Protein backbone atom coordinates (compact mmCIF):
# COMPACT_ATOMS: atom_id res chain seq x y z
CA UNK A 1 0.00 0.00 0.00
CA UNK A 2 1.32 3.41 -0.95
CA UNK A 3 1.50 5.90 1.92
CA UNK A 4 1.25 9.62 1.36
CA UNK A 5 1.66 12.42 3.90
CA UNK A 6 0.37 15.83 2.91
CA UNK A 7 1.48 18.67 5.13
CA UNK A 8 1.14 16.64 8.31
CA UNK A 9 1.91 18.43 11.57
CA UNK A 10 1.80 17.04 15.05
CA UNK A 11 1.82 18.88 18.31
CA UNK A 12 1.54 17.05 21.61
CA UNK A 13 0.70 20.07 23.72
CA UNK A 14 -0.85 22.37 21.14
CA UNK A 15 2.04 24.81 21.39
CA UNK A 16 5.25 23.22 20.22
CA UNK A 17 5.22 21.26 16.98
CA UNK A 18 6.88 17.88 17.32
CA UNK A 19 6.57 17.24 13.60
CA UNK A 20 6.41 20.11 11.15
CA UNK A 21 4.71 19.98 7.75
CA UNK A 22 5.68 16.49 6.73
CA UNK A 23 5.31 15.69 3.02
CA UNK A 24 6.38 12.39 1.58
CA UNK A 25 5.29 9.36 -0.35
CA UNK A 26 6.27 5.78 0.38
CA UNK A 27 5.91 3.61 -2.74
CA UNK A 28 3.98 0.37 -2.55
CA UNK A 29 5.94 -2.79 -1.79
CA UNK A 30 9.10 -1.08 -0.56
CA UNK A 31 10.98 -1.28 2.69
CA UNK A 32 11.56 2.15 4.13
CA UNK A 33 13.56 3.06 7.21
CA UNK A 34 12.88 6.04 9.39
CA UNK A 35 16.29 6.98 10.66
CA UNK A 36 17.39 9.70 13.00
CA UNK A 37 18.62 10.61 16.44
CA UNK A 38 16.34 9.96 19.42
CA UNK A 39 13.79 12.73 19.80
CA UNK A 40 14.01 13.43 16.09
CA UNK A 41 10.44 12.37 15.42
CA UNK A 42 10.82 8.95 13.82
CA UNK A 43 8.67 6.98 16.27
CA UNK A 44 6.15 9.80 16.25
CA UNK A 45 6.00 9.55 12.47
CA UNK A 46 5.51 5.81 12.71
CA UNK A 47 2.68 6.29 15.21
CA UNK A 48 1.06 8.76 12.84
CA UNK A 49 1.22 6.19 10.05
CA UNK A 50 -0.16 3.49 12.33
CA UNK A 51 -3.05 5.64 13.50
CA UNK A 52 -2.10 5.30 17.17
CA UNK A 53 -1.52 9.02 17.14
CA UNK A 54 -3.93 11.43 15.46
CA UNK A 55 -2.34 14.16 13.34
CA UNK A 56 -2.87 17.73 14.49
CA UNK A 57 -3.27 18.90 10.91
CA UNK A 58 -2.67 17.68 7.37
CA UNK A 59 -3.77 14.53 5.58
CA UNK A 60 -2.60 10.95 5.43
CA UNK A 61 -3.47 8.66 2.52
CA UNK A 62 -3.18 4.91 2.16
CA UNK A 63 -3.29 4.39 -1.59
CA UNK A 64 -5.92 6.89 -2.65
CA UNK A 65 -7.93 6.64 0.52
CA UNK A 66 -7.78 9.41 3.11
CA UNK A 67 -7.22 7.65 6.43
CA UNK A 68 -6.41 10.73 8.52
CA UNK A 69 -9.43 10.23 10.76
CA UNK A 70 -9.23 6.46 10.95
CA UNK A 71 -7.82 4.63 13.93
CA UNK A 72 -5.16 1.95 13.94
CA UNK A 73 -7.62 -0.90 13.60
CA UNK A 74 -9.41 0.62 10.60
CA UNK A 75 -6.11 1.28 8.89
CA UNK A 76 -5.36 -2.44 9.14
CA UNK A 77 -1.70 -1.96 9.89
CA UNK A 78 0.45 -4.66 11.44
CA UNK A 79 2.91 -3.43 14.01
CA UNK A 80 5.91 -4.87 15.80
CA UNK A 81 6.90 -3.00 18.92
CA UNK A 82 10.33 -2.55 20.36
CA UNK A 83 9.72 -4.99 23.22
CA UNK A 84 7.66 -7.27 20.93
CA UNK A 85 4.58 -6.93 23.18
CA UNK A 86 3.60 -10.56 22.90
CA UNK A 87 0.80 -11.73 25.17
CA UNK A 88 2.68 -13.55 27.91
CA UNK A 89 -0.20 -15.83 28.85
CA UNK A 90 -0.81 -17.15 25.33
CA UNK A 91 1.16 -19.73 23.38
CA UNK A 92 2.99 -18.78 20.22
CA UNK A 93 0.13 -20.25 18.19
CA UNK A 94 -2.49 -18.24 20.07
CA UNK A 95 -0.38 -15.10 19.90
CA UNK A 96 -0.16 -15.30 16.12
CA UNK A 97 -3.84 -16.20 15.83
CA UNK A 98 -5.03 -13.47 18.21
CA UNK A 99 -5.86 -10.84 15.54
CA UNK A 100 -7.83 -13.51 13.66
CA UNK A 101 -9.64 -14.50 16.84
CA UNK A 102 -10.67 -10.87 17.24
CA UNK A 103 -12.01 -11.01 13.68
CA UNK A 104 -13.97 -14.10 14.74
CA UNK A 105 -12.20 -16.35 12.27
CA UNK A 106 -12.97 -20.01 13.04
CA UNK A 107 -10.49 -21.80 15.22
CA UNK A 108 -9.31 -24.39 12.70
CA UNK A 109 -8.83 -21.75 10.06
CA UNK A 110 -6.95 -19.30 12.23
CA UNK A 111 -4.64 -22.01 13.54
CA UNK A 112 -3.92 -23.07 9.99
CA UNK A 113 -3.00 -19.50 9.10
CA UNK A 114 -0.92 -19.17 12.28
CA UNK A 115 1.03 -22.27 11.35
CA UNK A 116 1.69 -20.97 7.85
CA UNK A 117 2.99 -17.72 9.24
CA UNK A 118 5.07 -19.53 11.83
CA UNK A 119 6.66 -21.42 8.99
CA UNK A 120 7.34 -18.19 7.12
CA UNK A 121 9.19 -16.69 10.07
CA UNK A 122 10.78 -20.01 11.08
CA UNK A 123 9.17 -20.54 14.47
CA UNK A 124 6.98 -23.48 13.47
CA UNK A 125 8.79 -25.68 16.01
CA UNK A 126 7.87 -23.34 18.89
CA UNK A 127 4.11 -23.16 18.44
CA UNK A 128 3.13 -24.56 21.83
CA UNK A 129 5.58 -22.54 23.89
CA UNK A 130 4.78 -19.31 25.67
CA UNK A 131 6.75 -16.16 24.81
CA UNK A 132 8.65 -16.37 28.12
CA UNK A 133 10.31 -19.56 26.87
CA UNK A 134 11.63 -18.04 23.65
CA UNK A 135 14.85 -16.21 22.87
CA UNK A 136 14.76 -12.56 21.88
CA UNK A 137 15.14 -13.38 18.21
CA UNK A 138 12.32 -15.92 18.32
CA UNK A 139 10.02 -13.47 20.10
CA UNK A 140 10.81 -11.02 17.37
CA UNK A 141 9.82 -13.56 14.73
CA UNK A 142 6.56 -14.34 16.52
CA UNK A 143 5.78 -10.64 16.76
CA UNK A 144 6.30 -10.28 13.02
CA UNK A 145 4.09 -13.30 12.33
CA UNK A 146 1.36 -11.85 14.55
CA UNK A 147 1.58 -8.52 12.75
CA UNK A 148 1.27 -10.32 9.40
CA UNK A 149 -1.64 -12.49 10.53
CA UNK A 150 -4.31 -10.04 9.53
CA UNK A 151 -2.75 -9.51 6.08
CA UNK A 152 -1.94 -5.91 6.93
CA UNK A 153 -1.86 -3.00 4.56
CA UNK A 154 1.48 -2.04 6.04
CA UNK A 155 4.00 -3.68 8.32
CA UNK A 156 5.40 -1.23 10.85
CA UNK A 157 8.41 -2.03 12.97
CA UNK A 158 9.44 0.22 15.85
CA UNK A 159 13.13 -0.26 16.63
CA UNK A 160 12.60 -3.99 16.41
CA UNK A 161 16.24 -4.96 16.73
CA UNK A 162 17.38 -2.73 19.56
CA UNK A 163 16.84 -5.38 22.23
CA UNK A 164 18.95 -8.00 20.47
CA UNK A 165 22.66 -8.62 20.73
CA UNK A 166 24.94 -7.60 17.87
CA UNK A 167 25.15 -10.95 16.08
CA UNK A 168 21.42 -11.62 16.27
CA UNK A 169 20.73 -8.12 15.06
CA UNK A 170 22.50 -8.79 11.81
CA UNK A 171 20.71 -12.11 11.40
CA UNK A 172 17.31 -10.60 12.12
CA UNK A 173 17.71 -7.65 9.81
CA UNK A 174 18.36 -10.06 6.97
CA UNK A 175 15.33 -12.04 8.06
CA UNK A 176 13.16 -8.96 8.03
CA UNK A 177 14.38 -8.19 4.54
CA UNK A 178 13.66 -11.76 3.43
CA UNK A 179 10.18 -11.81 4.93
CA UNK A 180 9.41 -8.44 3.39
CA UNK A 181 10.49 -9.64 -0.02
CA UNK A 182 8.59 -12.92 0.29
CA UNK A 183 5.36 -11.23 1.31
CA UNK A 184 5.81 -8.03 -0.66
CA UNK A 185 4.15 -6.03 2.11
CA UNK A 186 5.09 -2.38 2.32
CA UNK A 187 7.29 -2.17 5.40
CA UNK A 188 8.29 0.81 7.48
CA UNK A 189 11.06 0.36 9.91
CA UNK A 190 12.21 2.74 12.66
CA UNK A 191 15.81 2.66 13.75
CA UNK A 192 18.50 4.89 15.15
CA UNK A 193 21.20 2.64 13.75
CA UNK A 194 22.36 3.84 10.33
CA UNK A 195 24.10 0.57 9.62
CA UNK A 196 20.79 -1.26 10.00
CA UNK A 197 18.99 1.22 7.80
CA UNK A 198 21.66 1.21 5.10
CA UNK A 199 21.65 -2.58 4.90
CA UNK A 200 17.99 -3.39 4.54
CA UNK A 201 16.11 -0.42 3.16
CA UNK A 202 15.01 0.49 -0.31
CA UNK A 203 14.66 4.04 0.91
CA UNK A 204 15.68 5.86 4.03
CA UNK A 205 13.98 8.85 5.55
CA UNK A 206 16.28 10.82 7.81
CA UNK A 207 14.32 12.68 10.46
CA UNK A 208 15.68 15.23 12.86
CA UNK A 209 14.16 18.14 14.75
CA UNK A 210 10.74 17.19 13.50
CA UNK A 211 11.48 17.56 9.83
CA UNK A 212 12.59 15.31 7.00
CA UNK A 213 16.26 15.98 6.39
CA UNK A 214 16.43 13.74 3.37
CA UNK A 215 14.42 10.89 1.88
CA UNK A 216 16.22 8.78 -0.70
CA UNK A 217 18.06 5.54 -1.35
CA UNK A 218 20.96 4.54 0.91
CA UNK A 219 23.47 5.22 -1.86
CA UNK A 220 22.25 8.73 -2.55
CA UNK A 221 22.13 9.43 1.16
CA UNK A 222 25.78 8.58 1.48
CA UNK A 223 27.10 9.94 -1.75
CA UNK A 224 25.02 13.04 -1.90
CA UNK A 225 23.78 14.15 1.52
CA UNK A 226 21.30 16.97 1.22
CA UNK A 227 22.76 18.83 4.13
CA UNK A 228 25.43 18.93 6.76
CA UNK A 229 23.27 17.06 9.26
CA UNK A 230 22.77 14.07 6.98
CA UNK A 231 26.43 14.11 5.98
CA UNK A 232 27.43 13.94 9.62
CA UNK A 233 24.75 11.43 10.59
CA UNK A 234 25.40 8.90 7.82
CA UNK A 235 28.76 7.23 7.50
CA UNK A 236 31.25 5.47 9.71
CA UNK A 237 33.64 6.98 10.69
CA UNK A 238 31.93 10.33 10.97
CA UNK A 239 32.71 12.69 8.09
CA UNK A 240 35.52 15.21 8.63
CA UNK A 241 34.17 18.73 8.86
CA UNK A 242 36.11 21.93 8.89
CA UNK A 243 35.45 25.58 8.17
CA UNK A 244 35.51 26.13 4.42
CA UNK A 245 37.83 29.09 4.95
CA UNK A 246 40.61 26.78 6.04
CA UNK A 247 40.49 25.05 2.68
CA UNK A 248 39.59 27.85 0.31
CA UNK A 249 43.12 28.51 -0.91
CA UNK A 250 43.44 24.93 -2.10
CA UNK A 251 40.02 24.90 -3.80
CA UNK A 252 40.18 27.93 -6.11
CA UNK A 253 41.12 25.85 -9.14
CA UNK A 254 38.34 23.26 -8.82
CA UNK A 255 35.36 25.07 -7.28
CA UNK A 256 33.58 28.00 -8.95
CA UNK A 257 34.21 31.24 -7.12
CA UNK A 258 30.49 31.95 -6.64
CA UNK A 259 30.04 28.68 -4.77
CA UNK A 260 33.22 29.16 -2.81
CA UNK A 261 31.98 32.52 -1.62
CA UNK A 262 28.89 30.95 -0.05
CA UNK A 263 30.68 27.93 1.39
CA UNK A 264 30.69 27.83 5.18
CA UNK A 265 31.64 24.25 5.99
CA UNK A 266 33.52 21.58 4.13
CA UNK A 267 32.81 17.90 4.63
CA UNK A 268 35.37 15.30 3.62
CA UNK A 269 34.71 11.58 3.96
CA UNK A 270 37.64 9.75 5.44
CA UNK A 271 38.03 7.62 2.33
CA UNK A 272 38.22 10.74 0.17
CA UNK A 273 41.67 11.65 1.45
CA UNK A 274 44.23 9.57 -0.42
CA UNK A 275 48.02 9.67 -0.41
CA UNK A 276 48.50 9.11 -4.14
CA UNK A 277 46.80 10.28 -7.27
CA UNK A 278 44.95 7.08 -8.10
CA UNK A 279 43.30 8.34 -11.25
CA UNK A 280 40.02 9.40 -9.62
CA UNK A 281 38.76 12.91 -10.16
CA UNK A 282 40.34 15.15 -7.51
CA UNK A 283 39.24 18.49 -6.08
CA UNK A 284 42.42 19.49 -4.30
CA UNK A 285 45.91 18.63 -3.31
CA UNK A 286 46.77 19.57 0.25
CA UNK A 287 49.92 19.60 2.28
CA UNK A 288 49.43 18.19 5.76
CA UNK A 289 51.28 16.79 8.73
CA UNK A 290 50.88 13.10 9.45
CA UNK A 291 50.32 11.72 12.93
CA UNK A 292 48.84 8.74 14.73
CA UNK A 293 49.05 6.36 11.82
CA UNK A 294 47.36 3.07 12.70
CA UNK A 295 46.67 -0.11 10.89
CA UNK A 296 43.96 -2.60 11.69
CA UNK A 297 42.98 -5.42 9.42
CA UNK A 298 42.93 -4.14 5.89
CA UNK A 299 42.34 -0.59 7.00
CA UNK A 300 45.07 1.94 7.59
CA UNK A 301 44.06 5.19 9.25
CA UNK A 302 45.91 8.36 10.07
CA UNK A 303 45.16 11.77 11.45
CA UNK A 304 46.30 14.62 9.26
CA UNK A 305 47.12 18.04 10.63
CA UNK A 306 45.99 20.63 8.15
CA UNK A 307 45.72 24.36 8.77
CA UNK A 308 45.09 23.77 12.45
CA UNK A 309 42.38 21.16 11.73
CA UNK A 310 42.58 17.42 12.19
CA UNK A 311 41.35 15.18 9.38
CA UNK A 312 40.90 11.43 9.56
CA UNK A 313 41.75 9.30 6.57
CA UNK A 314 41.19 5.60 6.18
CA UNK A 315 43.20 5.24 2.97
CA UNK A 316 46.75 5.50 4.29
CA UNK A 317 47.91 2.02 3.30
CA UNK A 318 51.34 1.92 1.66
CA UNK A 319 52.80 4.99 3.37
CA UNK A 320 56.22 4.55 4.94
CA UNK A 321 55.98 4.55 8.73
CA UNK A 322 58.64 7.23 9.08
CA UNK A 323 56.84 9.86 7.00
CA UNK A 324 55.83 12.93 9.05
CA UNK A 325 54.20 15.09 6.42
CA UNK A 326 53.40 15.21 2.73
CA UNK A 327 50.97 16.03 -0.05
CA UNK A 328 47.56 14.37 -0.04
CA UNK A 329 44.74 14.36 -2.54
CA UNK A 330 41.03 14.93 -1.95
CA UNK A 331 38.83 12.92 -4.30
CA UNK A 332 35.76 14.57 -5.67
CA UNK A 333 33.56 11.72 -4.53
CA UNK A 334 33.11 12.23 -0.82
CA UNK A 335 33.91 15.95 -0.83
CA UNK A 336 31.12 18.39 -0.02
CA UNK A 337 30.63 22.06 0.65
CA UNK A 338 27.72 23.39 2.69
CA UNK A 339 26.41 26.91 2.96
CA UNK A 340 25.57 28.87 6.07
CA UNK A 341 22.28 27.03 6.54
CA UNK A 342 23.95 23.69 6.11
CA UNK A 343 22.55 22.99 2.65
CA UNK A 344 24.72 21.19 0.13
CA UNK A 345 26.12 23.54 -2.50
CA UNK A 346 28.95 21.51 -3.91
CA UNK A 347 29.74 17.81 -4.10
CA UNK A 348 27.95 14.63 -4.89
CA UNK A 349 26.89 15.02 -8.47
CA UNK A 350 25.48 18.46 -7.89
CA UNK A 351 27.62 20.36 -10.36
CA UNK A 352 26.93 17.88 -13.14
CA UNK A 353 23.25 18.64 -13.23
Amino acid sequence: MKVTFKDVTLSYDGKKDTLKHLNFQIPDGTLVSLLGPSGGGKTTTLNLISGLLPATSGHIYFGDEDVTKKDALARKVGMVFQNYSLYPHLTVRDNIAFPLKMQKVKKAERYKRAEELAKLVHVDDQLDKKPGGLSGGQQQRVAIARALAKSPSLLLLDEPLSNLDARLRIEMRQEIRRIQQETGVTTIFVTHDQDEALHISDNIMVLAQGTIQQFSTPTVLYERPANLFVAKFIGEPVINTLPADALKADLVSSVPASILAQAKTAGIRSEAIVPFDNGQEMVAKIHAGLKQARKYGREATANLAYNGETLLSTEMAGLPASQTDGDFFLTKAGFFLFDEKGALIFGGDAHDE
Partner: protein
Amino acid sequence: MAKKISRVLLYLIVALGALTMLIPFLWMISTSLKSGPETIKVPPVWIPQVLRWHNYVEAFHAAPFLRYFVNSVIVTVVTTVGQLLTSILAAFAFARLRFWGKNFLFMIFLGTMMIPGEMLIIPNFVTLSKMSLVNTYGALILPWLASFFTVFTLRQTFQSTPDQIYYAAKMDGASDWKYLWTVLVPMSKSTITAVTVLEVIGSWNSFMWPLIVTNSEKMRTLPVGLQAFTTDAGTQYQLLMAASTFVIIPMVIVYMFLQKYIIAGISKAGLKG
Protein backbone atom coordinates in the same frame (compact mmCIF):
# COMPACT_ATOMS: atom_id res chain seq x y z
CA MET B 1 33.53 -23.20 65.46
CA ALA B 2 32.15 -19.87 66.62
CA LYS B 3 30.26 -19.72 63.37
CA LYS B 4 28.75 -23.14 63.97
CA ILE B 5 27.63 -22.19 67.46
CA SER B 6 26.00 -19.00 66.26
CA ARG B 7 24.24 -21.00 63.52
CA VAL B 8 22.84 -23.43 66.09
CA LEU B 9 21.86 -20.54 68.33
CA LEU B 10 20.13 -18.85 65.41
CA TYR B 11 18.04 -21.91 64.67
CA LEU B 12 17.29 -22.37 68.35
CA ILE B 13 15.88 -18.85 68.67
CA VAL B 14 13.89 -19.08 65.45
CA ALA B 15 12.50 -22.48 66.44
CA LEU B 16 11.61 -21.27 69.92
CA GLY B 17 9.77 -18.32 68.43
CA ALA B 18 7.97 -20.59 66.03
CA LEU B 19 6.94 -22.84 68.90
CA THR B 20 5.50 -19.83 70.71
CA MET B 21 3.46 -19.04 67.63
CA LEU B 22 2.26 -22.63 67.40
CA ILE B 23 1.43 -23.30 71.06
CA PRO B 24 -2.05 -21.74 70.97
CA PHE B 25 -2.90 -23.88 67.93
CA LEU B 26 -1.47 -27.04 69.47
CA TRP B 27 -3.24 -26.31 72.73
CA MET B 28 -6.49 -25.76 70.86
CA ILE B 29 -6.27 -29.07 69.01
CA SER B 30 -5.07 -30.93 72.08
CA THR B 31 -7.95 -29.61 74.19
CA SER B 32 -10.46 -30.30 71.45
CA LEU B 33 -9.68 -34.03 71.71
CA LYS B 34 -9.85 -34.31 75.49
CA SER B 35 -12.56 -35.50 77.78
CA GLY B 36 -14.13 -32.96 80.13
CA PRO B 37 -12.14 -33.93 83.23
CA GLU B 38 -8.94 -34.09 81.21
CA THR B 39 -9.21 -30.42 80.30
CA ILE B 40 -8.84 -29.32 83.90
CA LYS B 41 -5.98 -31.57 84.84
CA VAL B 42 -3.00 -29.93 86.54
CA PRO B 43 -0.33 -30.14 85.23
CA PRO B 44 -1.94 -30.01 81.80
CA VAL B 45 -1.71 -33.04 79.53
CA TRP B 46 -0.76 -32.44 75.91
CA ILE B 47 -1.79 -35.77 74.43
CA PRO B 48 -5.14 -37.06 75.70
CA GLN B 49 -5.36 -40.73 76.67
CA VAL B 50 -8.20 -41.30 74.24
CA LEU B 51 -8.52 -39.03 71.23
CA ARG B 52 -12.14 -37.98 71.42
CA TRP B 53 -12.94 -37.10 67.82
CA HIS B 54 -16.54 -37.26 68.88
CA ASN B 55 -16.10 -33.80 70.46
CA TYR B 56 -16.18 -32.36 66.97
CA VAL B 57 -19.48 -34.02 66.15
CA GLU B 58 -20.89 -32.93 69.48
CA ALA B 59 -19.75 -29.34 69.05
CA PHE B 60 -21.04 -29.25 65.50
CA HIS B 61 -24.50 -30.27 66.66
CA ALA B 62 -24.50 -28.16 69.83
CA ALA B 63 -25.26 -25.09 67.74
CA PRO B 64 -26.42 -24.65 64.11
CA PHE B 65 -22.84 -24.61 62.87
CA LEU B 66 -23.81 -26.05 59.52
CA ARG B 67 -26.05 -23.08 58.95
CA TYR B 68 -23.29 -20.69 60.10
CA PHE B 69 -20.87 -22.44 57.81
CA VAL B 70 -23.18 -22.16 54.81
CA ASN B 71 -23.78 -18.49 55.59
CA SER B 72 -20.06 -17.83 55.82
CA VAL B 73 -19.42 -19.57 52.52
CA ILE B 74 -22.20 -17.67 50.76
CA VAL B 75 -21.14 -14.31 52.17
CA THR B 76 -17.47 -14.91 51.45
CA VAL B 77 -17.95 -16.16 47.91
CA VAL B 78 -20.45 -13.50 46.84
CA THR B 79 -18.50 -10.69 48.51
CA THR B 80 -15.22 -11.78 46.97
CA VAL B 81 -16.53 -12.36 43.46
CA GLY B 82 -18.63 -9.20 43.47
CA GLN B 83 -15.87 -7.06 44.85
CA LEU B 84 -13.43 -8.47 42.33
CA LEU B 85 -15.74 -7.62 39.45
CA THR B 86 -16.42 -4.04 40.53
CA SER B 87 -12.74 -3.54 41.29
CA ILE B 88 -11.44 -4.94 38.00
CA LEU B 89 -13.76 -2.66 36.04
CA ALA B 90 -12.94 0.41 38.11
CA ALA B 91 -9.22 -0.31 38.17
CA PHE B 92 -9.21 -0.64 34.39
CA ALA B 93 -10.95 2.70 34.02
CA PHE B 94 -8.42 4.37 36.30
CA ALA B 95 -5.45 2.68 34.68
CA ARG B 96 -6.33 3.00 31.04
CA LEU B 97 -9.41 4.98 30.10
CA ARG B 98 -9.62 8.72 29.66
CA PHE B 99 -12.40 10.55 31.41
CA TRP B 100 -13.24 13.84 32.99
CA GLY B 101 -12.70 14.03 36.72
CA LYS B 102 -10.26 11.12 36.85
CA ASN B 103 -7.74 12.76 39.14
CA PHE B 104 -10.41 14.32 41.30
CA LEU B 105 -12.20 11.01 41.76
CA PHE B 106 -8.95 9.26 42.48
CA MET B 107 -8.01 11.76 45.18
CA ILE B 108 -11.42 11.33 46.81
CA PHE B 109 -10.98 7.58 46.95
CA LEU B 110 -7.47 7.94 48.27
CA GLY B 111 -8.80 10.23 50.97
CA THR B 112 -11.57 7.87 52.01
CA MET B 113 -9.01 5.13 52.62
CA MET B 114 -7.80 7.25 55.54
CA ILE B 115 -11.19 7.08 57.25
CA PRO B 116 -11.55 4.29 59.81
CA GLY B 117 -14.26 1.88 58.62
CA GLU B 118 -15.78 1.91 62.10
CA MET B 119 -17.04 5.42 61.42
CA LEU B 120 -19.19 4.07 58.62
CA ILE B 121 -20.97 1.44 60.68
CA ILE B 122 -23.70 3.67 62.06
CA PRO B 123 -24.82 5.35 58.82
CA ASN B 124 -24.59 2.04 56.96
CA PHE B 125 -26.75 0.38 59.56
CA VAL B 126 -29.27 3.21 59.21
CA THR B 127 -29.22 2.92 55.40
CA LEU B 128 -29.70 -0.82 55.49
CA SER B 129 -32.52 -0.57 58.03
CA LYS B 130 -34.27 1.84 55.72
CA MET B 131 -33.87 -0.66 52.90
CA SER B 132 -35.20 -3.33 55.34
CA LEU B 133 -32.09 -5.36 54.68
CA VAL B 134 -30.93 -5.81 58.26
CA ASN B 135 -30.57 -9.48 59.07
CA THR B 136 -30.32 -10.54 55.43
CA TYR B 137 -27.49 -11.60 53.16
CA GLY B 138 -27.86 -8.19 51.54
CA ALA B 139 -26.69 -6.46 54.70
CA LEU B 140 -23.80 -8.87 55.11
CA ILE B 141 -22.63 -8.47 51.52
CA LEU B 142 -23.63 -5.15 49.93
CA PRO B 143 -21.33 -2.73 51.79
CA TRP B 144 -18.31 -4.85 50.93
CA LEU B 145 -18.85 -5.07 47.19
CA ALA B 146 -16.51 -2.15 46.61
CA SER B 147 -13.02 -1.97 48.01
CA PHE B 148 -10.63 0.88 47.35
CA PHE B 149 -7.77 -1.25 48.49
CA THR B 150 -8.50 -3.82 45.78
CA VAL B 151 -9.04 -1.12 43.17
CA PHE B 152 -5.68 0.47 43.98
CA THR B 153 -3.78 -2.76 43.99
CA LEU B 154 -5.26 -3.82 40.66
CA ARG B 155 -4.75 -0.39 39.16
CA GLN B 156 -1.05 -0.58 40.04
CA THR B 157 -0.76 -3.89 38.26
CA PHE B 158 -2.80 -2.80 35.27
CA GLN B 159 -0.71 0.32 34.92
CA SER B 160 2.52 -1.59 35.03
CA THR B 161 1.63 -3.66 31.97
CA PRO B 162 3.34 -1.98 29.01
CA ASP B 163 1.28 0.45 26.93
CA GLN B 164 2.51 -1.32 23.86
CA ILE B 165 0.65 -4.49 24.76
CA TYR B 166 -2.50 -2.41 24.85
CA TYR B 167 -1.71 -0.83 21.50
CA ALA B 168 -0.83 -4.19 20.03
CA ALA B 169 -4.16 -5.61 21.19
CA LYS B 170 -6.01 -2.61 19.83
CA MET B 171 -4.34 -3.03 16.45
CA ASP B 172 -5.15 -6.72 16.56
CA GLY B 173 -8.77 -5.70 16.75
CA ALA B 174 -9.52 -6.06 20.46
CA SER B 175 -12.02 -3.64 21.98
CA ASP B 176 -11.32 -2.26 25.47
CA TRP B 177 -13.70 -4.82 26.91
CA LYS B 178 -12.04 -7.70 25.05
CA TYR B 179 -8.59 -6.41 25.93
CA LEU B 180 -9.51 -6.28 29.61
CA TRP B 181 -10.83 -9.82 29.78
CA THR B 182 -8.70 -11.68 27.24
CA VAL B 183 -5.37 -9.97 27.80
CA LEU B 184 -5.13 -7.82 30.91
CA VAL B 185 -6.93 -10.04 33.41
CA PRO B 186 -5.08 -13.25 32.43
CA MET B 187 -1.82 -11.31 32.50
CA SER B 188 -2.53 -10.03 36.00
CA LYS B 189 -3.45 -13.44 37.35
CA SER B 190 -1.05 -13.40 40.26
CA THR B 191 -2.19 -10.04 41.61
CA ILE B 192 -5.81 -11.00 41.15
CA THR B 193 -5.25 -14.24 43.01
CA ALA B 194 -3.51 -12.35 45.78
CA VAL B 195 -6.28 -9.82 46.32
CA THR B 196 -8.85 -12.60 46.05
CA VAL B 197 -7.21 -14.65 48.76
CA LEU B 198 -6.78 -11.65 51.03
CA GLU B 199 -10.43 -10.79 50.53
CA VAL B 200 -11.55 -14.36 51.21
CA ILE B 201 -9.61 -14.39 54.47
CA GLY B 202 -10.85 -10.96 55.48
CA SER B 203 -14.43 -11.78 54.67
CA TRP B 204 -14.40 -15.16 56.36
CA ASN B 205 -12.93 -13.74 59.56
CA SER B 206 -14.89 -10.49 59.74
CA PHE B 207 -16.78 -10.11 62.97
CA MET B 208 -17.96 -6.67 63.99
CA TRP B 209 -20.19 -5.98 60.97
CA PRO B 210 -21.92 -9.41 60.92
CA LEU B 211 -22.37 -9.12 64.67
CA ILE B 212 -24.19 -5.82 64.22
CA VAL B 213 -26.40 -6.63 61.23
CA THR B 214 -27.50 -10.12 62.21
CA ASN B 215 -29.95 -10.59 65.01
CA SER B 216 -31.26 -14.04 64.33
CA GLU B 217 -29.44 -17.32 64.65
CA LYS B 218 -30.10 -18.33 61.06
CA MET B 219 -28.22 -15.37 59.57
CA ARG B 220 -25.09 -15.64 61.70
CA THR B 221 -21.72 -16.26 60.13
CA LEU B 222 -19.21 -18.61 61.71
CA PRO B 223 -17.30 -16.11 63.87
CA VAL B 224 -20.52 -14.61 65.20
CA GLY B 225 -22.00 -18.06 65.74
CA LEU B 226 -18.87 -19.20 67.54
CA GLN B 227 -18.99 -16.16 69.79
CA ALA B 228 -22.62 -16.91 70.64
CA PHE B 229 -21.76 -20.54 71.24
CA THR B 230 -19.43 -19.62 74.15
CA THR B 231 -22.41 -18.67 76.27
CA ASP B 232 -24.04 -22.05 75.61
CA ALA B 233 -20.91 -24.13 75.96
CA GLY B 234 -19.94 -22.48 79.26
CA THR B 235 -16.95 -24.31 80.65
CA GLN B 236 -16.93 -27.19 78.20
CA TYR B 237 -13.61 -26.11 76.79
CA GLN B 238 -13.16 -29.27 74.73
CA LEU B 239 -16.27 -28.35 72.69
CA LEU B 240 -15.28 -24.70 72.44
CA MET B 241 -11.86 -25.65 71.15
CA ALA B 242 -13.35 -28.11 68.66
CA ALA B 243 -15.63 -25.36 67.36
CA SER B 244 -12.72 -22.89 67.17
CA THR B 245 -10.76 -25.46 65.19
CA PHE B 246 -13.35 -25.84 62.51
CA VAL B 247 -13.73 -22.10 62.16
CA ILE B 248 -9.98 -21.73 61.71
CA ILE B 249 -9.28 -24.76 59.51
CA PRO B 250 -10.75 -23.58 56.18
CA MET B 251 -8.57 -20.47 56.07
CA VAL B 252 -5.51 -22.42 57.13
CA ILE B 253 -6.12 -24.72 54.17
CA VAL B 254 -6.59 -21.76 51.83
CA TYR B 255 -3.40 -20.30 53.23
CA MET B 256 -1.38 -23.48 52.83
CA PHE B 257 -2.32 -23.78 49.16
CA LEU B 258 -2.03 -20.14 48.17
CA GLN B 259 0.70 -18.99 50.52
CA LYS B 260 2.97 -17.57 47.85
CA TYR B 261 0.16 -15.44 46.42
CA ILE B 262 -0.79 -14.09 49.83
CA ILE B 263 2.76 -13.08 50.57
CA ALA B 264 3.21 -11.58 47.12
CA GLY B 265 -0.07 -9.72 47.54
CA ILE B 266 0.81 -8.33 50.92
CA SER B 267 4.18 -7.15 49.79
CA LYS B 268 2.78 -5.65 46.62
CA ALA B 269 -0.14 -3.89 48.25
CA GLY B 270 1.66 -3.16 51.49
CA LEU B 271 4.72 -1.66 49.92
CA LYS B 272 2.87 0.42 47.40
CA GLY B 273 0.31 1.68 49.86
